[in-house]
């Protein structure tokens, strides 16, 4: 009546054993058994990522661990080059005598229209923001549309108009594009891809790997607005709340920050995976610890309430107009003042700092007074949100 152990478990155990044989001797001074186990886990986490699933699942698109594994194991492996390897929001390139930033992003949000914005506005702002947080001045965008047979022209007109308005607000132009139509049922109304280039005309060098112990970590405003808005806009949850997407172009805000504090170490816009994912990228790429205080993290009461009801943590919820900045500790006040001087940064606040220990780990001091880890999410149990 008992069957054999399924094959995948045997495989996982074999890999685990192989790894153990090659792990080498443990550190000489062993504090306790729990610490030994923690070190073993740490080594396992540093292993080369591998996609174990046979098919793509929704987790691969959720922005957490599964997404990261997919990117590193498949795309980075296939395209590996020094420009791609940093895996920042935009690649930094030298063309002729000029330095430019190049980025691309696809938008599959559902519903297409939601409180505070629509897919068109998102497609412009998202790509503008990826350029801006790379220190570039966004200039030109491309736009590619995949449309489903039967999609209302009136909706497309509305989306195009809002892209126009967003481009004007961000001070950029859409200069090339593409259109494809697929059969009914082969897409969900309208998908948009945008790519963008920007000029790197500031003398700054940014990257999450540059974070150093003592640096301050700042967010530019309340987090989680976009993600919660989308979840509620789907109408599946029967919750009503007065929230709207925070979608906005961040290039003006970034310019103000870099003018005041050219020594900014890194910036990221907190989209899919939320602020927690960015903090983990910082900890991982700079081999530092990150310590944040729950009380310092701005979250609107409506968003907190909805997240509480849904059992999700706002730290993992997407924003579309918020950035996380790492700045030298002694310049935190100046950075904060620069952000707060801009309408999009009025509620900016310092949420934590970079520490030497423990490397690669993000810790949260909870409002209740305890401490816990903030890890990457494995996958998002809720449908796609950006």
């Amino acid at each position, binding site marked *: 009546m*008992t069957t054999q152990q*399924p094959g995948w478990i045997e495989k996982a155990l074999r890999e685990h054993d192989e790894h153990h044989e090659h792990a080498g001797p443990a550190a000489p001074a062993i*504090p306790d058994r729990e610490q030994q186990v923690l070190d073993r886990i740490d080594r396992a986490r540093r292993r080369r990522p591998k996609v*174990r699933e*046979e098919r793509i699942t929704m987790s691969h698109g959720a922005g957490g661990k599964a997404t990261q594994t997919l990117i590193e194991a498949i795309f980075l492996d296939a395209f590996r080059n020094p420009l791609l390897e940093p895996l920042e929001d935009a690649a930094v390139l030298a063309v002729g005598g000029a330095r430019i930033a190049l980025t691309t992003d696809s938008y599959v949000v559902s519903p297409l229209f939601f409180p505070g914005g629509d897919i068109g506005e998102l497609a412009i702002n998202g790509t503008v923001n990826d350029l801006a947080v790379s220190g570039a001045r966004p200039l030109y965008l491309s736009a590619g549309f995949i449309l489903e047979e039967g999609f209302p022209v009136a909706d497309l007109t509305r989306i195009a108009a809002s892209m126009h308005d967003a481009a004007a607000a961000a001070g950029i132009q859409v200069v090339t594009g593409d259109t494809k139509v697929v059969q009914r049922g082969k897409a969900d109304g309208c998908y948009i891809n945008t790519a963008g280039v920007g000029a790197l005309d500031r003398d700054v060098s940014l990257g999450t790997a540059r974070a150093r112990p003592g640096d301050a970590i700042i967010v530019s405003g309340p987090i989680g607005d976009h993600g919660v808005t989308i979840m509620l806009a789907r109408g599946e949850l029967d919750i009503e709340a007065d929230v709207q997407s925070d979608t906005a172009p961040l290039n003006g805000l970034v310019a103000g920050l870099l003018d005041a504090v050219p020594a900014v170490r890194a910036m990221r816009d907190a989209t899919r995976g939320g602020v927690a994912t960015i903090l983990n990228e910082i900890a991982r790429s700079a081999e530092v610890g990150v310590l944040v205080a729950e009380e310092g993290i701005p979250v609107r009461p409506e968003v907190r309430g909805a997240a509480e009801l849904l059992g999700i943590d706002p730290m993992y919820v997407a924003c579309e107009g918020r950035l996380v900045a790492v700045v030298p500790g002694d310049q935190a006040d100046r950075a904060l003042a620069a952000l707060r001087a801009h309408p999009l940064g009025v509620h900016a606040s310092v949420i934590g700092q970079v520490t030497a220990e423990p490397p690669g780990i993000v810790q949260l001091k909870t409002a209740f*007074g305890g401490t*816990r880890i903030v890890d990457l999410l494995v996958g998002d149990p809720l449908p796609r949100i950006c």
Partner: protein
Amino acid sequence: MKFVDEFRDADKAHALAAKIAALCEPGRQYKLMEVCGGHTHTIYKHGLEDYLPESITLVHGPGCPVCVIPMGRVDDAMALAAQPDVIMTSFGDMMRVPGSNGSFFDAKAAGTDIRMVYSPLDSLKIARANPGKRVVFMAIGFETTAPSTAMTIMRAAAENLPNFSVFCNHVTIIPAIKAILDSPDLRLDGFVGPGHVSTVIGCRPYEFIARDYGKPVVVAGFEPLDILQSIYMLMLQLSERRSAVQNQYSRVVPWDGNSTALRVIGETMELRPYFEWRGLGFISHSALAVREEYARFDAELLFKVPGVRVADPKACQCGEVLKGVLKPWECKVFGTACTPETPIGTCMVSPEGACAAYYNYGRMNRHRVTEAAEVGRP
């Protein structure tokens, strides 16, 4: 946030922590089990263990609905879902539970129609909208979720809905607690009782624990202060050499439970002679099946269910973790072969599972962390 922040007040927590520490007798070690996975989640999410003296150990119990589902049952569900014209509906945290051949998520990616629902009633909506399909709800959970499944069955009966059924995996908490109490390898001092289960069954069913086993039980709420206060109440009983059932969660839990909820469960479901629990083995009278009167909504009768029993993977020590004999990190494969991305055991799947909670929130050395936090204080 109103009615939430009050229960997360750090000042009150400090005061309670001091009172708890004062009750610890020198040289004595205390092992308290929180039965419910929701409590485990709260403890880790808020870092509650930071408030407890080293002599108090919290042992994480079997009350995580997803964690106790044996692998064979997942395989049965997948076989059900793969039959023609079936739409399987399931709660979100069931989606990643591994069977012999992957999880619901993997099956969904391979083309099986499995949909996530927030309430069993949503399954009825899907059934009405798809008259040509057969909708099967994967029912899991303790007495907490059983009433909503029961209501859904009754609603389907009232509507005479021909294409809806339930694959019933509901379990009951008391036999599991009794199995743990009778387990020879564990010495517990008291129980933090499950709050939401008790909303339905009340506090009386726990009386045998205090009376026959001499262990105090405090039914607790789910905010961190609720749990801390319950620990204080347990410690107070222990210091006075008493064992009684107390209700800390009186704002929600009536002493005699919810008679309406109990009635609808009794109306639609009956106890199975026995049921297999992940890691705990077969426990008699520990699970519910759909009653004969509602047989037309019982997926186990309507479909061919293989009913294959799959051995728990040998390396996986979920059973020991569920019984509280092992701490998550003491399992051989914890965090290396078994991680939240590729869970081998169920405890690593649900955010309420002890292993997942420890891995995601508590994977750190308390001493080192405290030092780092002190150094890092602005």
